[in-house]
């Protein structure tokens, strides 16, 4: 790396390359946004789902669980918990926490109202209907 290849050439390649690939990234993002409505289940973004997402966030569920594979790896994947367990089980489970079984991982009690539980379930149902290219590989998440 001496002689012909100078520092200013390296600098120009850096700026040129960065700008080019960032613009390419923006173009792909633009296209992604155009394609998303076919996959992202946004037609089912009801007020209940939106309220449920807020409950999901303000209870920091992501601090233990994954959602579509992102989050903490301490507790089960919940992107497909709706088809795995169904709405009634989900609500009963949340209400029954913590189990208090000695030595077992514990989930806090969040004291959610029936309405809040319905919203959370609506959010999890909406999430499970996003087209995730068949991920996870099976129902266990």
């Amino acid at each position, binding site marked *: 790396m001496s002689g012909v290849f100078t520092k200013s050439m390296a600098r120009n*390649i850096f700026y040129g390359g*960065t700008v080019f690939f960032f613009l390419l990234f923006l173009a792909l993002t633009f296209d992604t946004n155009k394609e998303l409505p076919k996959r*992202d289940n946004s037609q089912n973004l009801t007020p209940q789902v939106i309220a449920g997402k807020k409950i999901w*966030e303000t209870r*920091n569920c992501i601090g233990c669980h994954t959602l579509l594979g992102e989050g903490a790896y*301490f507790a089960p994947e919940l992107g497909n918990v709706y088809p795995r367990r169904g709405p009634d089980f989900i609500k009963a489970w949340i209400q029954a926490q913590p189990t208090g079984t000695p030595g077992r*991982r514990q989930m806090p009690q969040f004291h959610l109202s029936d309405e809040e539980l319905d919203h959370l379930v609506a959010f999890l149902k909406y999430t499970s209907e996003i087209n995730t*290219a068949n991920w996870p590989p099976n129902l266990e998440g």
Partner: protein
Amino acid sequence: MQYKSQAVAKPYFIAAIGLFIGQIVFGLVMGLQYVIGDFLFPMLPFNVARMVHTNLLIVWLLFGFMGAAYYMVPEESETELYSPKLALALFWIFLVAGAATVLGYLFVPYATLAEMTGNDLLATMGREFLEQPLPTKLGIVVVALAFLFNISMTMLKGRKTAISMVLLLGLWGLAIFFLFSFYNPHNLVKDKYYWWWVVHLWVEGVWELILGALLAFVLIKVTGVDREVIEKWLYVIITLTLVTGIIGTGHHYYWIGAPEYWQWWGSIFSALEPIPFFAMTVFAFNMVNRRRREHPNKAAVLWALGTGVMAFLGAGVWGFLHTLAPVNYYTHGSQITAAHGHMAFYGAYVMVVLTLISYAMPILRGRAANSNKAQVVEMWSFWLMTIAMVFITLFLTAAGILQVWLQRVSDTPMGFMATQDQVALFYWMREWAGVAFFIGLILYVISFFIKGESKAIA
């Protein structure tokens, strides 16, 4: 030190190390909760410990980056810092805001914290790594902008080197991409898509510019190799970083509802992401081999070389392991991800900050290098922490492979919790490796207090 105002870096480095200790303590708690599920429950649920663990990491690295900038930029620009007072004020603001946020996590239920801090005005909380309440997020923006103003003004009035330009670009990028943390659409796919503009474009984008600049600065100082050579390398490395890393964001878009062409874009470009890290390893060793002087600070040289190797292993190799879409289909969101995360953060960002602290701290304390005795202890801490991190990563990888096999590949897949019971042995071993890491960290802190004869600044 050459410029009086560089001294403001010192409190930043001290705070960084202090928060680092906190991060590891909470890490040990979580490691134990993985095997003794009800440990400290309900006083300290896992999700709270995790917020503290990851947020402290981010905050102490930011302290490290800012301290590094305050140390490096006056020297690079050959002028005093624009405003040392502003730098010191920002230090206290950032420290108090950071401490208040952590106390909020620990002592206020998260939903209450959200309510108290205006999450209803603009809901930004409850997303991984971006859990901070709105005032904290705004505070980060204010501190970052004031910090950038200070650094930019310093550079404008002095010499403009490639190293300080790259550093500044990285820091501006850090601040700009953080703004996406305020964008939280109801549409979960879009939420996730742009969440990565903070997380990925930080750690696999602009932070690598900061990393490169810090490493290049220390290498110039400790090897005496010609600046032209080192800065040319720096440009080549960061070109490779951004050319692969920007589109490489696509490796997070495989399974979150984005179009499936991302499986191709993400796989191809992120498969190339190890290249800049490999170049960095070659760079560090090459420069040290071609050194024109024997710097008395052997520990700093060790950290610099260690950064090159461990960043390549953690970010490069362990990233590549699970980045191809057909592999990631099985490993996504498993302990493999955790393994990669640990070694990549340690190898790239923790180690580069410790490299700079190792180089700069003795000078800030009025000597070219610490005494031999202190350096030996520091080097022991280097090996202990680094080897412990290798084992943490190996055990998590083993746990991850087993987890993926039992839960996702098998014809009779096990449930999540049943699988966790099966891999508990590896979690235990990870926890012990974590204890070894903590001992290394304590040794590191002790090394600052060891006296002995030190060489005066030449």
